[in-house]
C-alpha cells in the first residue's frame, strides 16, 4: 500500500503532482465569539424598535474578514475547474469562460440595475435582451424566444407547457410525452411535472431513434416527442426529417433538448429540420460559467404557432416589454430570468462572431473525434455511428477485470484530469461520456488520451490499483452509500 501511495499513485510524467494544501474546518468550527467580517456605516437615523425581534441566531458563524477570505480561498483549492485543466464532462460542455464576460456583467448600470425600474430607464438592459434574442433566433432558425427560464430543465418545462397550450388551442388534449431511453433525466422529470405520462422510446442499434418504435408509439395521445439532437450519445439523429414529419402527421410536436447545440451552431439549425420548440443552455453552448452547479439559463425558442403562448412579459421587436398576452402560459420565473447570463452569453457571441461560432463548433466536433479515434480499441465503442461533439465508450473490457467506469474516473483524477461523465447515458452500460469541447488543446488531449490508455492497461494488469483510486487527493474515495444511509446534512454543535 505504501508503494501504491508513493509511486503508482502519482503516475510519472503526467499532469499530476501532489502539493501542500491547507486543511480547513467548517465555518462553525473556525468561528470565535465576537468576530465579524464587515463594518457598516454608523446608523444615521434613530434606531427603530421591533417588538418581536428574535433573540439571536445560535451558532451562526463569527469570523474576521481575513478568516472569511482564507476560508473560501482554502476551500477553493480543493476544487477543480475549467481554469485548472481539461474538464471533459460529457453533456456539460465545460468550455472556457472568458473573463471579459464577467467584466461586462458587473459594469455599473448593469450589475446593479433593478428589474422593476421603469422601461425608460432600462433601455440598455432591454437592448441586451433583444440582441441576444435575435442572435439566438438566427443560430437556431426559430421564430420567437423567451429568455426567462432559469436553466435547461426549466426551459424544458416551459417548452412543454407551450406545447400543451398550443395543442389546447387546437382543441387537442393529449396525455403522453415520448422520450428516448438515451434522454437526460430532466426530460422525463419535466414531462411528469407538466402533467404528462412519460413513455419510453427505445434506441435502435445505431444509438438513434428506432423509427418503427416511433411509428408504433406516436399515437394520437402523444403531445410531444422530446428529442435531444445530437443525442446524448453524441450522435446526430439522421432521420430527423422523417421523425419530425411523423410526429407532425400524428398531430404532435417535436421538442428538442438543445443541450448539445454546441455541435450544430453555424452548421445546422433546428428550425430548419422540423423542431417546434427547443431550449438552449447558455451555460453550455454559450459559455456562461458553470459556477459549481449554476446559475445557468435556459431560453426557449419556438416556431410561430407557439409564439402566442410565450411567458409574459414578452420582449417585443422594439425591445419593450409586452404584458398583454392573453394566451400566454404566464410567468415561469420572477422578473426576466437570469439576466447576468444574458450579458455573458451575448459577449461570448460578439467575441466569436459568425466565423468564430462556426469554428468553435468544428473544433468541438474535431476534438471529440480525435479522442474517439485514439481511444477506440482501448475502450469499447458501443455504437459505430459517427460522433459529433462527444463520444461515449463503455467499460465492457475493463468490467471483465472488475473495473468499472466509476473506477476509471477516479483513477483519471490521479493522472491530473477531471473525469468524464460517468454512467450516463443509461442506454450504454458502464458509460464513459467524453466531451472535450473546443477549449481542449492538442497537448492536453494527448495527455488525457495517454492517461486513459494507461488506465486501460492498469485495469488489465493491476485492477485493484484502479479500484482503489484516487490516491493523490486530500480526501480519498468517499463512502457515498453510508452517507445516504444515515444522512448528516448539517453541522450541529457538539452537545
Amino acid at each position, binding site marked *: 500500500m505504501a508503494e501504491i501511495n508513493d509511486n503508482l499513485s502519482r503516475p510519472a510524467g503526467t499532469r499530476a503532482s501532489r502539493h501542500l494544501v491547507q486543511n480547513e474546518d467548517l465555518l462553525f468550527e473556525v468561528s470565535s465569539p465576537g468576530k465579524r467580517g464587515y463594518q457598516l456605516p454608523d446608523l444615521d437615523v434613530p434606531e427603530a424598535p421591533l*417588538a418581536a425581534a428574535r433573540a439571536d441566531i445560535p451558532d451562526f458563524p463569527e469570523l474576521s474578514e481575513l478568516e472569511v477570505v482564507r476560508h473560501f480561498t482554502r476551500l477553493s483549492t480543493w476544487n477543480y475547474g475549467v481554469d485548472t485543466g481539461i474538464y471533459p464532462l460529457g453533456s456539460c460542455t465545460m468550455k472556457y469562460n472568458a473573463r471579459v464576460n464577467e467584466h461586462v456583467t458587473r459594469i455599473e448600470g448593469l450589475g446593479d440595475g433593478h428589474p422593476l425600474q421603469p422601461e425608460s430607464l432600462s433601455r440598455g438592459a432591454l437592448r441586451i435582451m433583444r440582441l441576444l434574442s435575435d442572435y439566438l433566433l438566427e443560430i437556431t432558425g426559430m421564430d420567437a424566444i423567451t429568455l426567462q427560464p432559469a436553466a435547461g430543465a426549466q426551459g424544458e418545462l416551459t417548452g412543454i407547457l407551450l406545447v400543451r397550450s398550443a395543442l389546447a388551442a387546437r382543441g387537442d388534449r393529449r396525455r403522453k410525452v415520448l422520450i428516448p431511453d438515451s434522454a437526460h433525466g430532466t426530460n422525463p422529470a419535466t414531462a411528469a411535472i407538466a402533467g404528462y405520462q412519460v413513455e419510453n422510446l427505445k434506441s435502435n442499434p445505431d444509438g438513434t431513434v428506432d423509427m418503427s418504435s416511433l411509428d408504433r408509439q406516436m399515437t394520437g395521445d402523444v403531445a410531444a416527442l422530446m428529442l435531444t439532437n445530437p443525442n446524448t450519445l453524441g450522435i446526430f439523429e439522421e432521420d430527423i426529417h422523417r421523425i419530425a414529419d411523423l410526429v407532425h402527421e400524428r398531430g404532435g410536436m417535436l421538442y428538442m433538448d438543445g443541450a448539445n447545440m454546441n455541435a450544430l451552431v453555424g452548421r445546422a439549425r433546428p428550425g430548419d429540420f422540423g423542431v417546434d420548440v427547443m431550449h438552449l443552455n447558455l451555460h453550455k453552448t454559450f459559455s456562461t460559467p458553470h459556477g459549481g452547479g449554476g446559475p445557468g439559463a435556459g431560453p426557449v425558442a419556438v416556431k410561430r404557432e407557439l409564439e402566442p403562448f410565450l411567458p409574459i412579459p414578452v420582449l417585443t421587436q422594439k425591445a419593450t416589454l409586452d404584458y398583454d398576452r392573453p394566451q400566454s402560459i404566464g410567468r415561469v420565473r420572477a422578473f426576466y430570468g437570469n439576466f447576468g447570463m444574458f450579458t455573458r452569453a451575448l459577449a461570448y457571441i460578439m467575441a466569436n462572431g459568425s466565423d468564430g461560432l462556426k469554428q468553435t463548433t468544428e473544433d468541438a466536433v474535431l476534438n471529440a473525434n480525435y479522442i474517439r479515434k485514439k481511444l477506440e480499441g482501448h475502450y469499447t465503442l458501443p455504437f459505430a455511428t459517427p460522433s459529433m461533439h462527444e463520444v461515449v465508450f463503455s467499460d465492457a473490457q475493463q468490467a471483465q477485470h472488475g473495473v468499472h467506469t466509476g473506477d476509471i474516473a477516479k483513477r483519471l483524477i490521479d493522472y491530473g484530469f477531471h473525469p468524464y461523465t460517468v454512467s450516463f447515458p443509461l442506454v450504454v452500460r458502464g458509460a464513459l461520456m467524453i466531451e472535450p469541447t473546443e477549449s481542449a488543446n492538442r497537448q492536453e488531449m494527448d495527455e488525457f488520451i495517454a492517461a486513459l490508455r494507461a488506465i486501460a492497461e492498469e485495469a488489465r494488469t493491476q485492477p485493484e490499483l484502479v479500484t482503489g483510486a484516487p490516491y493523490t487527493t486530500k480526501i480519498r474515495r468517499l463512502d457515498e452509500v453510508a452517507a445516504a444511509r444515515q444522512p448528516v446534512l448539517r453541522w450541529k454543535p457538539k452537545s
Partner: protein
Amino acid sequence: MLAELGLNSVDVLFDHIPEYCRLQRPLSIPTGRSEAEIIAWFQQAARDNAPGFTSFLGAGAYQHFRPTHLDQLISRGEWFTAYTPYQPEISQGTLQAIFEFQTMICQLTGQEVANAGMYDGSTALLEACMMAARVTGRSGIVVARSVHPQYREVLSTLTKPREFPIAEAGFTPDGRLDLAALKAAVTAETAAVAVQSPNFFGTIEDWEAAAAIAHAQGALLVAVIAEPVSLGLLPAPAAADIVAMELQGFGIPVGFGGPYAGIIASREKFLRSLPGRLVGEARDSDGKRGFVLTLSTREQHIRREKATSNICTNQALCALMASIFMATYGRQGLRELAQQNLSKAAYLASACQKAGLEVLFPAPRFHEFVVRLRRPLAEIEARLHQEKIIPGLSLQRYYPELGNALLVCATETIPRAGLDRLAALLSEV
C-alpha cells in the same frame, strides 16, 4: 489533427448530417469583435439604464452593500469554472461550502434540513407547494394575496397543468394576512398554505397564527421569505413546515432580476420529499471527513419521471455568494444589518407622514412600506427621474384596489439625506 483522423477537411465530420439540415450560409451575425469593442458596447448599454440613480425599489430585489471580497472570492476559477460536484474527491471545496450553506439556512430559518438551492424565490415557492402535495397527498393550495405577485404568477403557471386548485386569502387594513379569510379558505383538501413575511407590503406576519390554521386542517405551512436580511431580526419561521426563501438580499447583485438563488428548508421527516440537491457528510477510505452529494434517489438523473423535481443545474455560485455574505456579517453583523434596514424604513415612513403623505398599513414592518401618492406615479415620475430618483414601485398593476399606492423600500445603502429628499419630493409633486 485532421491528418491523424485521415480527413482532408473538417466538413467531413458533418457529412452525415443530412444535406437539408445543413446551414449553407454564414450566420447573419457580425464577425468576431475585440474585447475592447465589446466592453465599449456594454458600457454604452449600461449608460442607457439608470447608473447613479437613487432607487427605492425593493419588491423582491433588494440593494445591499456587497463586501468587496465577495466578488473577488467567487472570481477564483476553482469556484466559478467548476460544475456540479459529481466527483467529490476533487470538489470538496464546493461540497463543504454547500454543507455550510445548508447549515446556515437551517440556523436562520429554524428548520432541520435545507437543500443546496433552487432557482429563486418564485420557483422555490412552487417547489414547496409541490412538496407539500407529495407529503400530504393533497393538491389544494391557499396563498396569501400579500405574497409577491410574481411568485403567485409563477405558482399559477406551473401548477396549471396538474390542476392544483389555488385559493387566495386577502389582507386586512393593517397590511397583514386576513387570518379569518385564511381559515375559511383552508380545507381538508389543502396541501399548502403559503404566507410571506415580511409580506409584499413589507409588513411582518405571524407565523404561529398561520401555522395553527394550516395544521388544524392537516395542511402544511409554507413560509415564503423574499428578503433574507429580515431574518437577522425577525423570528425564524420555525412554525412553518417548509420554508421557500429567496437569497438575493444576501450579497447577490440586483442585476436586472437574476441570477438569484432560492432555497427550500423543511423538517427532517419530510427529507425524502425535498426537491433539489443535498450535500451530506461522508467518510473516505482513511476515515477522514468529507462531503458528497447525497440522497440523489430523489433526483431526476436517478429517478427520472418519479423525481421530486426536474431541477438539475441550480444557482450554486449565487448560493456561494450568500454563504460568503452570511459568514462575513455573521451572528452580530446580520442583526445589525437588519436593524439598520428596519430603522431606515421607519425613518422614511415617518418622514413621509410628516410630509403629509398617507402611509398605508400600520402593522409592524421591516424595510418596505406602502405610501399613497396624490397622483398616479406615471404623472410625476419624469420629475423624479430628473432628480435621479426612482421612488419605488407603483402597485397599480398588482393591487389596483390600493389606488395610487407606491411600494417604497429603504435599505442601509441610503443615507438619511436621501430619505429626506424622497419624502420632500413626494410631498411636492
